[in-house]
């Protein structure tokens, strides 16, 4: 499988303070990777670099064959990076349908359209003409995922997609991600729910204080329970 995303020696920060130090990460086509770590360890900063909101201070990011470390967000989006951001960030004053349709794109394929998203998340179908802001948290999360799918992404990034959701809703989300994996959609999942992540992901990267401190596949990771606990632990 070819490399879809390759992050090399990435450093980034805000103003004078550095947050990321020499981060490396590779995701191949069809692969599911995770990013582990507690809050404030640099996960969100990495996501900001990946989607172009933040320009790294050093290092390279290549995505879908292009160097994108300094590219504008929309260029990266067009290349096929689908973002499900932390806090969902759906458009509250747009209806569910509009949220899905507004930024939809077929540049990288036609697999996803309105009908398919609705059949994927039937709850959204029932809320089509409701304003995004009036949805419950779980529904907003589904909408955020649906919205990203509508851009027909080559890589889906899910930043804390289950945070703050009721257990049953979480289960729905994880089931959906499982289905996406089955379709060979490459994903980068950031979450603290190890139990759900381990069966889903092909490999994991753990961040602590802005540095990669642990990598490996699920089997390798499970053998390091102590380390894991320190990494994201309760």
């Amino acid at each position, binding site marked *: 499988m070819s490399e879809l995303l390759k992050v090399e020696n990435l450093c980034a920060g805000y103003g004078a303070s550095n947050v990321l130090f020499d981060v490396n990460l590779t995701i191949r086509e069809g692969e599911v990777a995770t990013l582990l770590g507690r*809050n*404030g360890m640099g996960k969100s900063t990495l996501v900001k670099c990946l989607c172009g909101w933040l320009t790294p201070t050093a290092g390279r990011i290549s995505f879908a064959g292009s160097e994108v470390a300094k590219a504008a967000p929309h260029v990266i989006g067009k290349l096929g990076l689908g973002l499900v951001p932390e*806090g969902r960030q759906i458009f*509250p004053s747009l209806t569910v349908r509009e949220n899905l349709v507004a930024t939809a794109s077929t540049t990288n394929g036609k697999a996803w359209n309105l009908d398919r998203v609705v059949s994927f998340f039937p709850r959204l179908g029932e809320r089509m003409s409701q304003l995004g802001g009036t949805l419950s*948290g779980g529904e907003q999360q589904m909408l955020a995922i649906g919205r990203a799918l509508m851009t027909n992404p080559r890589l889906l990034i899910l930043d804390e997609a289950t945070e703050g959701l009721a*257990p049953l809703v979480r289960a729905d989300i994880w089931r959906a991600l499982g289905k996406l994996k089955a379709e060979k959609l490459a994903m980068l999942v950031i979450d603290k729910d190890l139990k759900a992540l381990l069966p889903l992901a092909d490999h994991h990267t753990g961040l602590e204080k802005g540095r990669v401190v642990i990598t490996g596949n699920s089997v390798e990771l499970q053998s390091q329970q102590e380390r894991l606990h320190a990494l994201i632990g*309760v």
Partner: protein
Amino acid sequence: MSALVTHALVKRFGGVLATDHVSLTVEPGELHAIIGPNGAGKSTLIGQLAGEIASDEGSVRVLGVDVSRMPTHQRAQLGLARTYQVTQLAKEFTALDNVLLAVNARAAHNFRFWGNAHDDDAAMQKAATALAIVGMSHLHHAEVGTLAHGEQRQLEIAMALATEPKLLLLDEPLAGMSQGESAAIISLLKSLKGRYPILLVEHDMEAVFALADRVSVLVYGRIIATDTPDRIRENAEVRAAYLGDEA
């Protein structure tokens, strides 16, 4: 008399219930921690307690006084001091001036145009003391915008202490700190414990379980459990909600 009593606090944002009938108490001298995943409504709750966010339902009593309809600055004058999850400082000021601002908030005669604020020796002394408590004595004259993130977080706490609070609301004081910085703050919090009633919102479980007398778990805007740290650790519902385990 409890330092803080909330009764069935509710805040709605559009279709989302950010806080859902939250009732909790903080007893004198108690450190009560609130944990919960992002988006659970912790910051909203703090905002409601401080008066920055108007509650849709419910009541808040601070030291026996009903403050439900009181503006923020009056609650602060009652002795309710808070820190912010995202640092809120006067960026153009020096560290000392930030703390002086806090000291002066408790001064009866601050509405003065003439004397130099820096000439008030008593106030300056209090400000310096507060900075010393958080270990920033060497940074009196540093412009806040130039301070490291961790130092800014410490300054937040110094400002809260400088208001001579009767109740502390600490909103994720450890957020974004390095390990060394965290350790310093944790030992600071340990020294504060018992001297002030504290409501602590924090992600760092290690810290919470080390510090708290009681822990409340806020999920989806609701408190699903309030108990001692040990019992919370064992609570199946908490594990399910917080870690996503199927209960």
